[in-house]
């Protein structure tokens, strides 16, 4: 789609100037939770040709969570190395990250961009503008 910015685009353009860290957090819509694998949501999401999975059960152990994160990394192929939040969800909670969220942290460890909650607030184009603006001031 014209004008759409993907995480892959961002990574490919800025990975020499910005460290990209993907943190896999608890599943958003597992089969045993708030599942979108049926009904109209399933129909609409399949139309979008999304690469997300509809067959994941909520991991119950850190080993299961790491395995799901590995499957996710392999399927989505952002090129960004994936790290995994622990089962206590501490990182997720500290950043209010569930279901998806984007941040840009500057060299001093200060937040310069805090995206809104996904899916509606998940805007790679806004992160791109934040990166561009930050790097221009460097």
């Amino acid at each position, binding site marked *: 789609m014209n004008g759409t910015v993907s995480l892959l685009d*961002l990574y490919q353009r800025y990975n020499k*100037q910005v*460290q*990209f*860290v*993907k*943190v*896999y*957090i*608890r*599943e*958003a*819509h597992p089969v*045993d*939770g*708030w599942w*979108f694998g049926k009904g109209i949501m399933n129909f609409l999401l399949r139309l979008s040709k999304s690469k*997300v*999975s509809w067959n*994941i059960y909520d*991991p119950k*152990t*850190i080993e299961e969570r*790491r395995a*799901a*994160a590995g499957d*996710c*990394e392999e399927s989505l192929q*952002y090129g*960004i190395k*994936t*790290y*995994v939040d*622990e*089962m*206590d969800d*501490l*990182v997720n*909670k*500290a*950043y*209010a*990250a*569930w*279901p*998806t*969220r*984007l*941040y*840009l*942290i500057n*060299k001093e*460890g*200060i*937040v310069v961009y*805090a995206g809104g909650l*996904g899916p509606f607030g*998940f805007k790679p184009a806004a992160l791109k503008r934040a*990166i561009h603006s*930050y790097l221009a001031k460097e």
Partner: protein
Amino acid sequence: MILFKQSHSGAQVDTIKDRKEASAWQKSYDSKAPKPGDLAPDFEVRDIQGEHPIRLSDFKGNTPVALIFGSFT
């Protein structure tokens, strides 16, 4: 300084079952999320093999960091 340390063995929080539970979860944490100008909470995470731990603070003084949070669904 690391602001909190993970247990690496914590129990699974109950699976969110519907929109109501999702909204409750987000209401609980969203107001505490860091905003522009705030110090980003430090953390440690490991890769999908459970190895190679990194901390956000590892990059301090060196490079900005784009944090991408998400799952497979």
